[in-house]
């Protein structure tokens, strides 16, 4: 035991190790019928870690230029040992992570964990969600196949519809007027440097805030517990909650491995910038609800183009959603039920539109 305690002393003198250990030892997680939702945040973090690791591994072989991108991904899939595994985990992992991020966001919404004093946690989380969608959008172009380029064209076209700033944004994203090799370089920089940098900072902030305020207890449960203190039930984070979370992480990794082995991510055909767009191009599933909405909007409404109206509406919705804690100050009653109702509507709208988009092909 001598070496262990010597090591501990060494760490404590430099990093305040004992303080950290004490904090973790004392951290508890409330246990109630909604506790399972607490896993979602950690799961998203774990999947982000997987993305970083597989992403760095892909960086060892990937070449971000129009002559090299497709070929290097093909090389990874066919020549590099287990390249298919790393690449497929990265591609599937992205989708699963976006799913858990969205689920995490909705669960925090419905459990009302965004309320005072956790407003900044919600805010940083929402920004992280937008960054994650940005990761998805920028990463999708990197394999440089026909789907990638078409989806990027459509996506940046829509950005170009934003009033006032739209065209500038389009040029900024595309590195020019059209989607070209310049777009690829730019998206690569965004995907491996800018977004990771921002995400790391925000994750740090987000996690620190979560530790600072502890896990939030939903208002209903809180009321029950206040009325009957005997019902209060907390488990220790370490080892109890952590072991369960570890199980969930193993399951997640098993799912990713199975997806990679049974359904490796496809290579597609190399992008041809001069070919016309293939029929039926559509964005990835997480953008489908917006895509479908824009398709359904009339081309003009009171002299405003339908697309612009759609973008403005989504922008407004996103802004309101992000600033939610400042609208819902935590008073129970009708205001709170309105917010919950709006949340149910939003969830049903997103799910409904996504399903509709796939059925109405």
């Amino acid at each position, binding site marked *: 035991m001598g070496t262990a305690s010597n090591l501990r002393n060494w760490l404590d003198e430099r990093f305040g190790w004992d303080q950290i250990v004490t904090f973790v030892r004392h951290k508890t997680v409330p246990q109630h019928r909604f506790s399972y939702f607490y896993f979602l945040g950690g799961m998203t973090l774990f999947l982000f870690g997987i993305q970083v690791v597989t992403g760095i*591994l892909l960086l*060892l072989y990937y070449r971000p230029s129009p002559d090299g991108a497709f*070929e*290097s991904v093909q090389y990874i899939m066919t*020549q*590099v*040992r*287990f390249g298919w*595994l790393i690449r497929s985990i990265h591609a599937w992992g992205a989708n699963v992570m976006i799913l858990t991020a969205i689920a995490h966001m909705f669960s925090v919404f419905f459990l009302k964990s965004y309320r005072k004093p956790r407003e900044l946690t919600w805010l940083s989380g929402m920004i992280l969600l937008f960054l994650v969608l940005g990761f998805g959008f920028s990463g999708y172009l990197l394999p440089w196949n026909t789907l990638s380029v078409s989806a990027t064209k459509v996506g940046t076209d829509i950005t170009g519809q934003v009033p006032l700033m739209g065209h500038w944004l389009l040029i900024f994203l595309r590195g020019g007027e059209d989607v*070209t090799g310049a777009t690829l370089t730019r998206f690569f920089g965004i995907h491996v440097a800018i977004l990771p940098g921002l995400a790391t900072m925000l994750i740090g902030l987000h996690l620190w805030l979560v530790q600072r305020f502890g896990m939030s207890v939903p208002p209903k449960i809180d009321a029950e517990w206040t009325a009957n203190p005997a019902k209060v039930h907390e488990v220790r984070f370490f080892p109890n909650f952590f072991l369960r979370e570890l199980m969930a992480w193993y399951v997640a990794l098993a799912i990713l491995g199975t997806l990679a082995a049974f359904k490796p991510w496809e290579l597609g055909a190399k992008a041809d910038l001069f070919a016309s767009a293939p029929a039926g191009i559509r964005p990835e599933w997480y953008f489908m609800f917006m895509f479908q909405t824009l398709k359904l909007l009339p081309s003009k409404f009171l002299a405003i183009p339908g697309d612009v109206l759609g973008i403005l509406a989504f922008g407004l919705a996103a802004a309101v959603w992000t600033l939610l804690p400042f609208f819902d100050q935590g008073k129970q009653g009708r205001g709170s039920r309105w917010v919950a109702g709006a949340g149910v509507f939003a969830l049903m709208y997103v799910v409904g539109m996504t399903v509709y988009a796939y059925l109405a092909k």
Partner: protein
Amino acid sequence: MQKSNSNDPSKPERRGFLETFLGISVVASLISFLYPVLRYVIPPKQAELGSDLVLAGHVGDLKPNTGKIFPFGSRPALLILTSDGNYHALSAVCTHLGCTVQYRSDLREVWCACHNGTYDVDGRNISGPPPRPLESFGVMLKGDEIYVQRQRNA
């Protein structure tokens, strides 16, 4: 902290067994994750040159006024050494119906056996059915190695 020993004498063995079992399986799982990663980072034997640069042959492979077919990416290409000592590299996929063309030393032209189409050594379609010229590639010599490169496009 560990719980204090219970009165049950069988418990210590079970406790040890569970921890050992878990420890071994966790280590095994970590190995099963790290093994692919380690194999991945070791570069494969065939280094990738990229689809637009291919080693077509060596000086001396071709006699003057002859040509040879070599794989360029996934399609055949034609390397010609004309009698003036210049190398020409063209796509060998005929622009008519896709047959593989060949260099005819007697005609000093590129010829397609399928429907008698002809091109000059720069790929221009001269006679017969071909509607378009053959794509022309750049040739670079490095020592005695002949490299063929796809011309840059915008």
